[in-house]
């Protein structure tokens, strides 16, 4: 046509431009970003693996808390950090950008398929999730009374689980951000995100739920379970975890479902 740039090279450049824009915006609020992702794992590790173990037997948590608990907690806290980023990096900004200001309009009008704008949001959120999950590891080494060392021998598995989980969190954020108004986003956080996190085998391995069989089966519908179990088998193989051949396909399936839902909701908001 009259434009010499080929479609594919334009796609790459536009996508890169969208990423640059998000990087610029986050660079303005680096401190809030770090506090946001760091505070929860910091406090958790401090209370349960530093304070609790020092309390003589009187603590009801004493039997489970301690070095063992720290090891159980590490992948769980990484999972929470990943989920939290998906919400904070996609759902919250998207919800306002779709809101009264409709700031997303200019990006939607860029010369690539509209789905690419949604994809960029998910990818950018995934990058943040990976950084956030990485931040948890040094904390787990330094804070607990007895350090928790992740086993990084299985790094290819860890990389795959991290990437899938981070994209999954971004897709969930896309679905929430595109369908919930800014006014209700806090509510969705309390009635959806908090419960699936608490019931997502973050603070205990899934296998330990065998005493409560109905719950063990019910939580299989919760994608966070697979994120935690996947990270467990990658980072702390000494703790019993779900087999990889279940975890990875489950992550892929949930990513496909949430990605589709998120994209549908996004397109509905953008094209009338």
């Amino acid at each position: 046509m009259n434009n010499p740039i080929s479609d594919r090279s334009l796609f790459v450049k536009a996508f890169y431009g969208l990423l640059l824009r998000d990087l610029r915006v986050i660079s303005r609020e680096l401190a809030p970003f770090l506090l946001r992702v760091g505070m929860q794992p910091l406090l958790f590790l401090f209370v349960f693996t530093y304070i609790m173990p020092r309390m003589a037997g009187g603590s009801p948590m004493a039997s489970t808390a301690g070095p063992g608990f720290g090891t159980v907690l590490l992948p769980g806290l990484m999972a929470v950090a990943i989920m939290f980023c998906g919400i904070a990096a996609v759902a919250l900004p998207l919800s306002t950008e779709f809101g009264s200001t409709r700031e997303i309009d200019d990006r939607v009008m860029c010369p690539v398929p509209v789905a690419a704008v949604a994809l960029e949001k998910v990818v950018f959120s995934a990058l943040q999730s990976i950084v956030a999950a990485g931040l948890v590891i040094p904390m787990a080494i330094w804070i607990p009374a007895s350090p928790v060392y992740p086993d990084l021998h299985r790094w290819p598995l860890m990389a795959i689980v991290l990437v899938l989980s981070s994209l999954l969190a971004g897709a969930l954020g896309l679905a929430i951000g595109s369908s919930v108004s800014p006014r209700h986003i806090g509510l969705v956080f309390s009635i959806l995100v908090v419960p699936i996190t608490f019931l997502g085998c973050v603070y205990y391995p899934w296998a330990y739920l065998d005493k409560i069989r109905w719950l063990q089966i019910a939580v299989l519908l919760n994608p966070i379970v697979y994120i935690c179990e996947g990270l467990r088998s990658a980072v702390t193989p000494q703790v019993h975890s779900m087999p990889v051949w279940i975890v990875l396909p489950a992550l892929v399936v949930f990513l496909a479902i949430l990605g589709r839902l998120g994209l549908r909701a996004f397109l509905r908001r953008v094209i009338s």
Partner: protein
Amino acid sequence: MIVEIEALTKVYEGKQRVVAVDGIDLEVKEGEIFGLLGPNGAGKTTTIGVATTRTLPTSGKVRINGIDVVDQPARARRSIGVVPQFNTLDRSLTIFENLYYHCRYFGFSHAQARDRSDQLLAQFLLTERRKAFPAQLSGGLAQRVQIARAIAHRPTVLFLDEPSAGLDPQSRLAMWTAVQSLRKDGITVLLTTHYMEEADALSDRVAIVDHGRLLALGSPQKLKDTFGAQTIIQLTLRQTDQLAALAAELATRSGVQNIETLDDGLRLFTTGAEGLLPDLIQSAARLGLRDIAINEPSLETVFIHLTGRDLRE
């Protein structure tokens, strides 16, 4: 043709079925400023929405530069610049960054985007505000930034939806100047408005739309010559029982070409108010003349002629 709209319809299915666009045909030529004039709810925004790939048509076709907007929306967007009805500047970016990243979205390199943004800031007299954030700008300035951003990637056609809605008169004039200066760059403009002065002042050609239909099309002068070379005098009366008699009486006055009877008065289509007024007032006084409104020949009188309604109603 830069913009071709063929038999366009858009129906919003919902609790209430709304036919927003009801068979519109339009062509916008290269380099012209084209005005879509109509009251609120006429379907202007919906028409622009389809042409800018944001609304899916129920039927009909729109081509931009020969590219079908439904089949190849991403490609069509390369040729399109849009200033929507509301301020959609990126609140998290400065004015300069709004322009810069817009260029990046369109594939510009860092240096190209930086130079183009600087040049636009200068062209639109915004250089001093380059570090400001959109929330710190007045409506008029924000509108100028939006226009600068919309043309940053050098589109062939710029869509402006109600560009002067909410602007004070001074900012409106500045905006008009900015739009007229686009002609130099060879940018085709399609703007919507419900201000007839705006359509008259800016457009080479105007299409008058109402209820999703196109009522008339042509240069402002041609429209006035064809439909509204008349001065419309509207009399609002207290007593309405003898309207017909009064109408019959006034119809005989020289200069009165046509009379319409309204609920609370009469609408006279005349060759001019001068000379006629004293006589009219005297005759109408019998029925308790409450108000008299005079519309000199304008796109307003064209619209009244075509629809029997005021643009503002």
